[in-house]
């Protein structure tokens, strides 16, 4: 799906205390980068009365305190921000490496994915770990990344019956998407591996390893490395 850029952001009211600023339509990396650049710029400015900046694919929400700022004053602030964004180069996205032990007990569906595409498991790992996956948005569950960039050779249907429990750290494929489960949850994705890293650690001051706008790279590791890194993750 490609995107459409608007000439200037369109503003929508989302109730009495949120504003949606929309930069275009569709799922598109350049459009998404604009959203994250705006979100970062808004956070840097730390405008009074802003309670949250929530970026998504093509728009972001500003959650505000209507006692402190008004919808109109925020749209004016956005217009000022626009000129800054035009002038400043978008920062190069950060790449976050996520080690993954592919196959075996951690990737029970790796052989299915390989057979489905007439590839060897090693070829699936090679294709999956070569790409850089942009994080378009984080949501659905804490730390869950909506990633782009899955090679069409790996697009695979979901499980006919979802598993009742997928362990945290599992790496999977569902249709054109790939991703990691940050927490234990039910799920229907084809599991090809698992990371030993804790992607969501609520007891840390910064509970996450990445943010929307970053890119993720999956780095293949051995089972011995998995065990070593896993042991290091546990206090």
């Amino acid at each position, binding site marked *: 799906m490609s995107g459409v850029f608007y000439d200037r952001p369109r503003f929508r009211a989302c109730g009495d205390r949120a504003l949606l600023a929309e930069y275009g339509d569709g799922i598109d990396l350049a459009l998404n980068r604009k959203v994250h650049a705006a979100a970062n710029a808004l956070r840097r400015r730390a405008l009074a009365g802003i309670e949250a900046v929530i970026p998504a694919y093509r728009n972001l929400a500003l959650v505000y305190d209507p006692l402190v700022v008004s*919808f109109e004053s925020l749209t004016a602030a956005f217009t000022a921000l626009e000129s800054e964004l035009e002038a400043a180069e978008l920062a190069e996205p950060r790449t976050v490496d996520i080690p993954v032990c592919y196959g075996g007990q951690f990737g029970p569906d790796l052989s299915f994915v390989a057979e489905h595409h007439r590839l060897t498991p090693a070829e699936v790992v090679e294709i999956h770990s070569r790409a850089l996956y942009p994080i378009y948005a984080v949501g659905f569950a804490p730390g869950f990344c909506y990633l782009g960039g899955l090679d069409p050779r790996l697009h695979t249907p979901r499980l006919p019956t979802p598993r009742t429990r997928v362990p945290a750290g599992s790496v999977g494929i569902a249709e054109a998407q790939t991703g990691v489960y940050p927490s234990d949850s039910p799920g229907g994705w084809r599991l090809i591996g698992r990371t030993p890293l804790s992607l969501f650690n609520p007891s840390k001051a910064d509970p996450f390893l990445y943010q929307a706008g970053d890119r993720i790279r999956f780095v293949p590791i051995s089972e011995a490395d998995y065990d070593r890194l896993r042991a290091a993750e546990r206090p």
Partner: protein
Amino acid sequence: MTDTFRVISPGPLTTIQDAGRTAFQHMGVPVSGVLDRYAAHVANCLVGNPAGSAVLEATLVGPRLEVLAEADIGVTGAASALTVNGVPTPGWTSVRVRPGDVVDAGAPESGCRSYLAVGGGFDVPLVMGSRATYLGGRIGGLDGRSLAAGDILKRGPARLLDQPRRLPWFPLYGTQVILRAVPGPQDEYFRTALATFFDSPFTVSAQANRMGYRLEGPALIREADAPASIVSEPIVAGNVQVPADGRPIVLLNEQTLGGYAKIATIITPDLFKLAQAKPGDTVRFVAVTVAESAAIARQWAAFFSEIRTLLER
């Protein structure tokens, strides 16, 4: 800090909630928190707590608690048959309880959720800046779960009240609720359906919980040229999303992104009325502008200050 209650029976769904976890919405962590801010605010004011202190939120039947340490409590929300040692006790007042007492919040006669505050606030670890229980993510409150029999509930440091506090009025929760809502953010998908939405009664279905309320009523048919779903975008409490079947769902505090179009968004000051609505109750929507909603927000902030002033006098 101080062991204050032992849970004898928890009720079907009782959780520790505060003003919510707002700092990590961009990372998919929902706000959670109390659904009825009015009742929770009064409960905290009754026992001298700062705004947003952690309280118990009970759905339908409230908990039965054995008191372990002297404390002031305030029970508000769904009009309940509150008893202390079996003696009927009014809600919306502060109550001094002592070790050995048994507090039973009872079953509501009207409304859906009751709130129990204790002087000093319920003391559980702050997780990502909040004590609110997020059941789906199993974080906050008591290890991210609802209360269970045998749990020990602690409270923070508190000074007992010099004299009891009582609010001279309390809200009655009827079975017909009027909710003010700002059209959008995707109101252009529903140009015709907006009239239906604002003219028709809807009924709260059995599928109503802390995640959201599914409503029954006339189908909200989107314009022929409007897509069935949108690119996933941020969600706020009060969003009324309309899936392809035309049956609206009001989203509450447990989701940060979603891909359904929203016909309207209930204003924050009115969400308590929905939180107290039960399956079978009737809901009607009234349109307000953003400017009107800001004026209502100011009135509500003034009202909340007035409640505190009144109770602390």
